[in-house]
């Protein structure tokens, strides 16, 4: 019995122990399950944070990042409604269009009520967050005293809500709020994670603000540069133009001693202009605003041309220039102007830093795996470069050493700019050098343009000239706000035989274009009232003026834009006058100035005809006075070139006939004679003529005729057309 009793006791103890073990196991399982569940929540939180972090880093806009956050938080909490309020400049929260709505129809009323409201600090859920700068939770918004939208929430069945700030530093930039269909007790874990979400999004806003500020600063910088370039180039253009006028006057009135100092002014001004252009080029390259104008061209003539240009500079230091360029170099596809610029820079540098030496330019083509290359090297026997100087050579604003600038002049930008151009064309400039032995700079460019650059718009062919009064010199309307530019342009264009009228602004220009129907218009871009782009668009948009060719004359180098707006040509200031008159002449060629050549000598007439044609004149001919009168009746010339000794009706008689006719009285006459005039002769001519030229050397005579004709046209235009 005793042992049975022992066994019972034993059994009871084992049962008790088993029972204990079972309870311990159940407890272990409960602990494990709880831990797993917590792990799952943590994982979800991490996923949410990861989602937000990725969105914060990769979203292209703040809105995108916010939208991702709204969707992410709603998915995480399984709450159906999320919304973003942004703080405006007055410090008030304003509703945005950023929503997460599981069912947009169902929550329509709530959305409407929300979007109609703004929240000041401490008012409503968003206002509370704005005031306290930390998350807030409402168990049931329909029972909350500080929830102005409680009716809308009630109507749409929304109950619990929480909101948290999007913080930029200490500042609440936005508030995100979320609502649930059921009342819910505050969940610290959710609020903790939302604080993280808020600070992540805050960083997005912070970054965007910094980017905006940077962009704005860069825009200001570009604008400043554009303005400064205008401010700098405008007076320089005036200085150059007016000095050139003075030079001409000095030459014409035999004040040769004045010519040299004026020449120095022009050269100094042009140098200053070149420096400014360099700086602007570089800043444009850096801003990525430099366009290339790529075309196919033959290599040899271009290189030859540059070498010719530099010849005098090379000679100055007793250098000899050697060009090794096989004539069959063929074509390449690149921006010719920029290659010229780079080559000019290298050769003039070589000539500058070499004395009594040789500058060798050699051109070749090589085939590499990467395609066909054109290699142009410029070697000199000059001072050379140390390794350290070589390293700094291509840096912007750096010359081999500071003293170089003082000794050799230059901006130190040329090489950097040249290299950038070559790099833009897919090539490069490299240098090999030994101090004291000389340097070799090598331009290497793909024969075919590799990188696709900004498309070069085809230059529209100049519109054909409108019919204008063929009896008059073609009228050019010059639109420019700068008084000096108007004066100088008028000066040169009238000298070139054009009639000029000017307008000091866009509005006036448009009016004159409509009223006067000029043969062509030169147009400045940067003007205070209407800018040139607007004026150009208006001219081309008005049927009354659309056909008038417009030449843009500006310091703003945006050729493509000009051509795409319908400009006939584009000239960058300072304007190359002969280039401009060439352009205008080609535009106006069908309405050239008329000249009547009266001479019985065939050879003289045909010589004059050719020269005058080249000068843009329309030439009528007569072999004596009588024929001349017939020509005068047909068409009145702008000027007459008259021989005195002719059969049938001589020059003196013709002059008398002209003076007795009111319509012809004012026509300037240039007398061209081989006769040594007597006092009597002079008395008969009696000032009624422009100039008397003696027939001597033919070439000299022709150019003199052209010059005098230009001059008299200029004066006549000055009288007959008022320059406003």
């Amino acid at each position: 019995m005793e042992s049975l009793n022992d066994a019972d006791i034993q059994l009871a103890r084992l049962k008790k122990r088993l029972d204990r073990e079972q309870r311990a196991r159940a407890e272990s399982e409960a602990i494990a399950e709880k831990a797993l569940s917590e792990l799952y929540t943590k994982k979800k939180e991490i996923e949410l944070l990861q989602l937000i972090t990725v969105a914060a880093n990769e979203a292209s806009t703040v809105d995108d990042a916010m939208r991702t956050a709204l969707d992410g938080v709603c998915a995480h909490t399984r709450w159906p409604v999320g919304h973003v309020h942004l703080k405006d400049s007055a410090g008030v929260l304003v509703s945005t269009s950023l929503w997460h709505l599981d069912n947009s129809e169902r929550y329509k009323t709530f959305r409407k009520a929300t979007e109609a409201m703004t929240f000041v600090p401490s008012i409503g859920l968003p206002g509370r967050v704005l005031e306290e700068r930390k998350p807030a939770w409402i168990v049931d918004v329909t029972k909350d005293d500080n929830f102005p939208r409680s009716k809308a929430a009630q109507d749409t069945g929304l109950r619990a809500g929480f909101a948290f700030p999007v913080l930029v530093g200490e500042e609440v930039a936005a508030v995100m709020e979320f609502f649930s269909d059921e009342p819910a007790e505050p969940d610290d874990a959710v609020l903790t994670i939302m604080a993280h979400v808020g600070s992540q999004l805050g960083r997005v806003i912070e970054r965007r603000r910094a980017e905006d500020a940077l962009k704005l600063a860069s825009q200001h910088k570009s604008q400043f540069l554009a303005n400064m370039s205008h401010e700098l180039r405008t007076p320089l253009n005036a200085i150059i133009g007016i000095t050139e006028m003075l030079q001409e006057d000095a030459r014409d009135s035999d004040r040769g001693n004045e010519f040299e100092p004026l020449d120095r002014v022009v050269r100094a001004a042009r140098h200053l202009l070149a420096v400014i252009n360099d700086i602007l080029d570089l800043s444009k390259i850096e801003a990525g605003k430099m366009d290339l104008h790529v075309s196919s061209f033959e290599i040899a003539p271009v290189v030859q041309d540059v070498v010719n240009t530099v010849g005098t500079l090379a000679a100055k230091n007793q250098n000899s220039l050697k060009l090794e360029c096989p004539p069959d170099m063929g074509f390449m596809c690149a921006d010719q102007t920029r290659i010229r610029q780079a080559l000019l820079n290298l050769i003039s540098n070589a000539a500058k830093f070499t004395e009594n030496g040789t500058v060798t330019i050699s051109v070749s083509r090589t085939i590499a795996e990467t395609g066909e290359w054109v290699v142009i090297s410029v070697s000199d026997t000059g001072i050379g470069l140390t390794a350290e100087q070589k390293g700094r050579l291509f840096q912007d604003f750096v010359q081999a050493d500071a003293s170089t600038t003082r000794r050799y002049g230059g901006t130190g930008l040329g090489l950097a700019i040249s290299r950038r151009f070559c790099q833009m064309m897919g090539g490069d400039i490299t240098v090999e050098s030994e101090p004291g032995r000389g340097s070799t700079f090598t331009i290497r460019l793909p024969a075919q343009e590799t990188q696709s650059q900004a498309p070069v718009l085809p230059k529209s062919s100049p519109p054909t000239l409108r019919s204008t009064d063929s009896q008059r010199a073609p009228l050019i309307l010059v639109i420019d706000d700068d008084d000096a530019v108007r004066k100088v342009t008028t000066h040169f264009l009238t000298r070139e035989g054009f009639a000029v009228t000017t307008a000091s602004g866009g509005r006036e220009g448009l009016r004159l274009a409509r009223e006067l129907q000029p043969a062509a218009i030169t147009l400045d871009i940067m003007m205070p009232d209407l800018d040139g782009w607007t004026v150009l668009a208006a001219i081309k948009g008005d049927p009354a003026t659309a056909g008038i060719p417009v030449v843009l004359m500006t310091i703003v180098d945006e050729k493509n834009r000009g051509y795409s707006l319908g400009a006939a040509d584009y000239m960058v200031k300072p304007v190359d006058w002969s280039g401009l008159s060439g352009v205008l002449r080609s535009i106006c060629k069908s309405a050239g100035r008329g000249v009547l050549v009266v001479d019985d000598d065939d050879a003289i007439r045909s010589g004059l005809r050719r020269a005058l044609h080249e000068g843009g004149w329309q030439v009528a001919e007569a072999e004596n006075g009588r024929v001349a009168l017939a020509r005068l009746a047909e068409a009145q010339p702008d000027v007459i070139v008259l021989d005195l000794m002719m059969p049938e009706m001589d020059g003196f008689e013709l002059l008398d006939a002209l003076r007795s006719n009111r319509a012809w009285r004012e026509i300037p006459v240039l007398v061209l004679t081989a006769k040594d005039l007597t006092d009597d002769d002079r008395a008969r001519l009696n000032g009624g003529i422009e100039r008397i030229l003696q027939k001597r050397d033919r070439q000299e005579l022709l150019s003199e005729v052209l010059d005098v004709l230009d001059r008299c046209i200029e004066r006549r235009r000055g009288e007959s057309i008022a320059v406003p």
Partner: protein
Amino acid sequence: MKGVVFNLLEAVVRRDYGDDTWEALLEAANTDGAYSSLGNYPDEEMMKLVGAASSALKMPADDVVRWFGRNALPLLANKHPHFFAAHKSTRPFLLTLNDVIHSEVRKLYPGADVPVFSYDTSSSEVLLMHYKSPRKLCALAEGFIEATAAYYAEELSLDQPECMNRGDDKCVLRVSVKKARG
């Protein structure tokens, strides 16, 4: 206190004194006795069990605790041999308590309230370990250290110049070991 400590106590009592003794201790301490290694249980339950053992075995409570530590450590070494195998001597092992051993304990038993020792290693011979805990279980530490020295087959000299149980604000365990002869 973590359930794992109760499990260890149960294991050594059962092994050395038999199943009945453990049952008797549970009854005497009037505790439930269902301990999951992952669970947390009030410190007083441990103190009651120690008290019950002290009465049953006619041993001072500190000696019971020291005995417990001495006998529990081999079980731990058996279960987690790599912590011990990484060292060849008591001193470097003791120096890893905070950073290695206890940090692993916290991973396995979240919420484990293990003590943090501060060390005075100014002497290469004598290691001073400062222990400060409201549980005042310096005797458990002594038992663990004794067993550790045994594990590495070293002769141990251990005393406590300061002890919270004697009214000091902390316990200082003075440890020095030398290789056992032979």
